[in-house]
């Protein structure tokens, strides 16, 4: 899984979540709005019903008043008169209410403006009839009602009321429709929104699942990688060890095979030397014979230059050049032989198996010091030992390391200053750190790495040596799982610091097959 894909997926998820949230908000807003609208519509419907009701009530009071008047005139009883009064009293607020309810509708207001004077007119007629009745003129009152003045008014009132009712019916229908519409709209919005949210949720779940699976895969991979890591490290270590062994075998074989031709070169050079002696003694004899000096018979082969007859000066020159050439060849061969031996010894050391044992470091170093005591007194040097940590390591290797370093310290002292060599040590985090400090001639910082290389030396070359000691020391220290460092300045002395594991078991470098 690439990083790009992961980032894309994250962006997708965030976008989906945002979209889901936005849709939810939209649905909520729309729902609130629509519910409010539905409520308003419903209240308008109720309003219409109320108006119709009031119209009916007003008409009812009218009828009641009319019938009360008629009853009074027929029976001449006062009960009907008070009934009429009652109806008139109730009609007034009913009409008022109707007026206040219909202020929103100009059509209804017009109708009402017609209705109210008509009603009032009608009541004036009723009151006149009643007043006639009270005055005892019932016949006249009946006549007044019969005259038909009132019937016309009454039918007008009925028409107007019917118109108003029609108008309200129309409004009722319209408002009911609007309320229905609002409600169904709200239902649609809610359903669609819910559907969308569910779809988004499904996509989100799918994405989350997928990234969870990717994460699980990655985790699995990581776990396997961790498990493999150990194995891989082992494998690499093994490879390195094999490579190291191969190099050592190679060095051994090469140096060994180099020796064989060297034996020939050395052998035949020596043979040539013998031949030279023979040749020049013969030359001497012949030249003497040529100059007519009586020859003394010389045994061939067993002559040496000292007993050989006098050579002529030219021949002497030749003989000397011959000897010089042979001398150079032989000294070079000798040097080469020593170098090859050194390599052989180093590889042999590399092949030796190490055995970690508990070592009393102080005792080990004291033994070394006692073996170099003569050298030390000749060099006018003292060697001091501070308390040292004991370690578990290979005894022989440790001995070689310290004896090489102490030897070097004694070898490279300054002639004008009494030598002072200090060996000290301490424990630190499972490692033992040893320091060999001298006040000798020191080493130029630019040579600090060089001196650990094979056949490389530094400083004034006035001491014997092949440039092997420190290379050997470093190889040993490394095999014991440690490191070696030098800090030094010219004419100020040197400090060699060795860090070794306090408890060395067969580590990566020490284990040999």
């Amino acid at each position, binding site marked *: 899984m690439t990083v790009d894909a992961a980032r894309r997926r994250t962006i997708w998820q965030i976008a989906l979540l945002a979209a889901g949230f936005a849709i939810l908000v939209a649905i909520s807003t729309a729902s609130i709005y629509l519910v409010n609208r539905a409520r308003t519509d419903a209240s308008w419907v109720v309003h219409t019903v109320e108006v119709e009701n009031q119209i009916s009530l007003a008409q009812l009071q009218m009828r009641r008043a009319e019938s009360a008047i008629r009853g009074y005139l027929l029976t001449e009883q006062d009960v009907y008169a008070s009934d009429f009064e009652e109806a008139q009293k109730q009609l007034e607020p009913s009409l008022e209410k109707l007026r206040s309810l219909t202020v929103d509708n100009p059509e209804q207001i017009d109708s009402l403006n017609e209705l109210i004077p008509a009603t009032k007119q009608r009541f004036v007629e009723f009151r006149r009839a009643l007043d006639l009745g009270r005055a005892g003129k019932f016949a006249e009152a009946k006549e007044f009602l019969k005259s038909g003045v009132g019937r016309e008014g009454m039918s007008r009132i009925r028409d107007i009321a019917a118109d108003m009712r029609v108008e309200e019916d129309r409004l009722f229908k319209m408002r009911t429709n609007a309320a229905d519409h609002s409600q169904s709209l709200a239902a649609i919005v809610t359903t669609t929104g819910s559907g969308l949210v569910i779809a988004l949720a499904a996509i989100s779940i799918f994405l989350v699942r997928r990234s969870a699976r990717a994460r699980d895969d990655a985790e699995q991979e990581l776990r396997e990688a961790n498990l493999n890591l150990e194995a891989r490290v082992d494998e690499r270590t093994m490879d390195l060890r094999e490579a190291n062994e191969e190099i050592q075998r190679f060095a051994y074989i090469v140096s*060994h*095979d180099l*020796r*064989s*031709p*060297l*034996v*020939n070169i*050395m*052998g*035949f*050079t*020596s*043979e040539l030397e013998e031949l030279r002696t023979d040749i020049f003694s013969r030359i001497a004899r012949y030249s003497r014979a040529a100059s007519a000096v009586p020859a003394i018979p010389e045994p061939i082969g067993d002559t040496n230059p000292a007993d050989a007859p006098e050579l002529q000066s030219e021949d002497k020159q030749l003989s000397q050049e011959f000897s010089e050439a042979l001398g150079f060849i032989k000294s070079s*061969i*000798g040097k080469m*032989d020593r170098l090859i031996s050194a390599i052989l010894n180093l590889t*042999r050391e590399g092949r030796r198996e190490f055995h970690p044992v508990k070592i009393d470091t102080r005792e080990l170093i004291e033994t070394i010091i006692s073996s170099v005591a003569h050298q030390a007194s000749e060099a006018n040097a003292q060697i001091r030992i501070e308390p040292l940590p004991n370690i578990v390591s290979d005894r022989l290797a440790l001995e070689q390391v310290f004896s090489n370093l102490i030897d070097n310290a004694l070898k490279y002292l300054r002639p004008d200053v009494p030598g002072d060599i200090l060996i000290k040590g301490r424990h630190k985090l499972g490692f033992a750190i040893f320091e060999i400090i001298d006040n000798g001639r020191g080493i130029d910082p630019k040579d600090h790495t060089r001196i650990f290389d094979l056949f490389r030396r530094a400083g004034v070359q006035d001491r014997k040596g092949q440039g092997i000691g420190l290379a050997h020391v470093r190889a040993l220290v490394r095999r014991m799982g440690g490191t070696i460092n030098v800090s030094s300045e010219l004419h100020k002395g040197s400090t060699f610091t060795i860090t070794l594991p306090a408890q060395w078991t067969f580590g990566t470098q020490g284990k040999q097959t």
Partner: protein
Amino acid sequence: MSLPVKIIMIEDDEGHARLIERNIRRSGVNNEIVPFANGTDAMKYLFGSDGTGAEHKDQALLILLDLNLPDMTGIDILKRIKENKHVKCAPVVVLTTTDDEQEIKRCYELGCNVYITKPVNYENFANAIRQLGLFFSVIKVPQTST
């Protein structure tokens, strides 16, 4: 020498062979020296065409053996010699450049009689071979068993 001891020299380096022969002669040993430059020829000679070594019965042999041969190691030859009933009594002198202790130990375990390292220093080399020659002139070599 009372017996006509044949010296078998198995040495791949001609120069070494020449130097060895010269120094043996200088020590006064005049026995026949049969040189071989590789292991195969030497084996063929030692064990015959049938590989039994019966050809050399009633002969006194002394074997000079180099360990580093082009076609096989001297140790293989040594092993074959010491396993063969006819030639196993012949003294074997291992003369080689190797001074590895493991190698030396192995040769003696396999039955070599003398192990000599060729020194690069010619004086030492010549000395060693001459002394070996002197040694040859005094030792008794058994006839190969019948």
